[in-house]
Structures are given as C-alpha cells and as structure tokens.
C-alpha cells in the first residue's frame, strides 16, 4: 500500500484538492444569506397549503415527505424500482447457491429469549413511522427498513427465516398499487401522481389525499425488499 505513496504527484494532487475545497468553503457562508431565494424556501411555503387554483399545495406538515412523494414522486418511483432491481439481483446471484454451512455456535440465550418481546415492538414502531410519514419525521423508507430489522434480529437469534411466497406477493402488490394510484391521477387529477382525494384537515392523520397512501405502499415495498435481501444472505445450516 505504501509502496507507491511516495510518488510526488500524489502529494501534489492532495495539495491541489485541499486548496480547491478551501476555496469553495466560503460559498457555504454566502449561501446562507440568499436562503430566501432557494427552491426549498418556496417548497416550504407551498407544502402546507391546500390546493388552490394556482398553488400546487400538498396540504401536509412534513415538507420532506411533500417533496419526496408529491413534487418528486416520479423520482421516488424510480428509486423504489432500483431497490426492487437490486433485491431481484441479489436473489438471482444467491438463488442457485445450495451450499450449506456447519452450525457452529448457539445463539445467545438472552437474544433468543428477548426476541419474542422485542419483535412486536419492532414491527409496531415501523408501522407507526410509515403511517405517520406525512405528519412526523420519518416515512415509508425509514419505517420499512425499521420493520425489516425484525428479519435481521431473527437471523441473529439463530432462527432460519423461511423464504415466504407471501412476501414476494406483498411486494408485487405494493409496487403495482403505487403505479395504479399514481396512474389514476391521470384521469382524476390531471397528471401522473396528481392529487384527486380530499386533503382533509391540516395535521390530521387522515389528510393529504394520496400522499399517505403512496407512502404506505412505499413502506411495504421497502420493508419486504430489505427482508428478502437479508434472507438471501443466509445459508442452510446443518448440525
């Protein structure tokens, strides 16, 4: 590793990099002053508004969710597709792997007994974060990963998580429902991912129209995909 490190060109590159970034640093200070002209400030202003004639408001308190699901909803669809592609690729690469590992260690006694206590809370917290994604910090991605941590805990406690068919079915249903809910906006809301449900009262659980619905589907899809990635990393154990 250190063999080629004495090359003076490396040192020159490092110095140039450092000088370049020191030159960039004051831009962050001056960027602070023109915050009112940023796109984010405009988004903050229109995110909690109801849908008037000229403002495309989302009607929810969490501005990050409004950006992710509403103003950049198509991008989120692509992001979920990338995650689906990776889950499929991991399954394909590990699918033909029929090799087994020898069971060497018994899981910790405390872990194996505490898991029955902890698992429901894992799932419940994940679901809470998914459902309240438009009101509080969090949302589909965070809650989905949290609920998928359940599978990892099962793996740590020595249980073999079975490859459940229902999991893949649920994943497919969630992905299709995302596209269907978004496509319904073409007829009812005027555009793909257009708003066509009533916005409801501000800061209520049943508000925001299609946004919480879409984020719940995203949460289900992310949770099942991460779970299936975890499952693919485990091998059959023989005693």
């Amino acid at each position: 590793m250190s063999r080629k490190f004495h090359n003076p060109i490396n040192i020159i590159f490092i110095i140039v990099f450092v000088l370049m970034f020191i030159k960039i640093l004051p831009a962050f200070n001056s960027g602070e002053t023109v915050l009112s002209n940023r796109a984010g400030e405009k988004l903050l202003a229109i995110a909690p508004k109801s849908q008037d004639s000229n403002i495309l408001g989302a009607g929810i308190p969490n501005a990050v969710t409004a950006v992710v699901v509403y103003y950049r909803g198509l991008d989120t669809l692509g992001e979920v597709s990338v995650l689906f592609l990776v889950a499929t690729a991991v399954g394909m690469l590990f699918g033909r792997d029929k090799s087994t590992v020898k069971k060497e260690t018994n899981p910790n006694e405390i872990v194996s007994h505490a898991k029955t206590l902890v698992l429901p809370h894992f799932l419940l917290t994940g679901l809470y974060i998914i459902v309240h994604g438009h009101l509080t910090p969090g949302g589909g991605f965070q809650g989905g990963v949290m609920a998928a941590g359940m599978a990892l805990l099962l793996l740590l406690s020595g249980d073999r998580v079975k490859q459940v068919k229902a999991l893949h079915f649920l994943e497919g249903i969630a992905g299709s429902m995302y596209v269907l809910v978004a496509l319904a906006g073409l007829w009812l809301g005027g555009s793909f991912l257009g708003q066509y449900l009533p916005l409801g009262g501000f800061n209520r659980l049943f508000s925001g129209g299609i946004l919480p619905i879409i984020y719940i589907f995203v949460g289900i899809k992310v949770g099942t995909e991460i779970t299936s990635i975890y499952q693919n990393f485990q091998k059959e154990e023989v005693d």
Partner: protein
Amino acid sequence: MTIADYSTVMPAFSIALLLIGLWGAITQKNLIKIFISLSIAETGVNLLFLAIAGFSGRMAPIIGDPNVTTGYTDPLPHALILTSIVIGTAVTALGLTLTARYFQHKGTLDISKMKELKN
C-alpha cells in the same frame, strides 16, 4: 467568519470524510474494505448536502402553522439525501453479493490477484 463557525466546520468535516473514503477506495486491496470506504465516502457526500441545508438554529421542516413557513431548514437536500441513502444501501448490498460469490469461486478477496480479464 471565525474558524469555528458552523457553516465552515461542517462542510470541511464532510469533505474530509469524502476524501478519506476515496483514499480508502483507491489504496485498499481487500474488496470488502473497498466497499466500506465507498460507504464512508457516501456518508461524506450526504453530510455535505445537509451542511448546504444549513440547519444551524433552524427547526426541522415539520410545519406547525401553515401560515408561518420561515425559520425552517431547506427540505430539498433532506429529500435528495433520502434517495441517496437508499441507493447507497442498494449498491452496497449488490456489491457485497458479488464479492461473496467471487470469494466462493476463487477463494480470494485481493484485487491484485484478480487477473481473469487480463490477457
């Protein structure tokens, strides 16, 4: 502008993380260490975006009153970083999968011993 100013320390810290990650990705020979380095570099980029969002003395963008929308941080970098984290997780998972399969076939993780594509 003092040197301990928040808006200077935070970008400098995140750029340092990014450079450490890139350094590791270039110099390490072990595939798993390369993926760890890429994760560190990605964390640096994410923190740089959050530094641009400028959350010093501002509230998280959860709006309490629809009529008062000032004093909150910029929600756009947060949303972008949400995407970035998910894609980073996906890239790490796929890379580790390929690494595991390669190790099963060849029994090594040293990239200087990978000569399959050299003629």
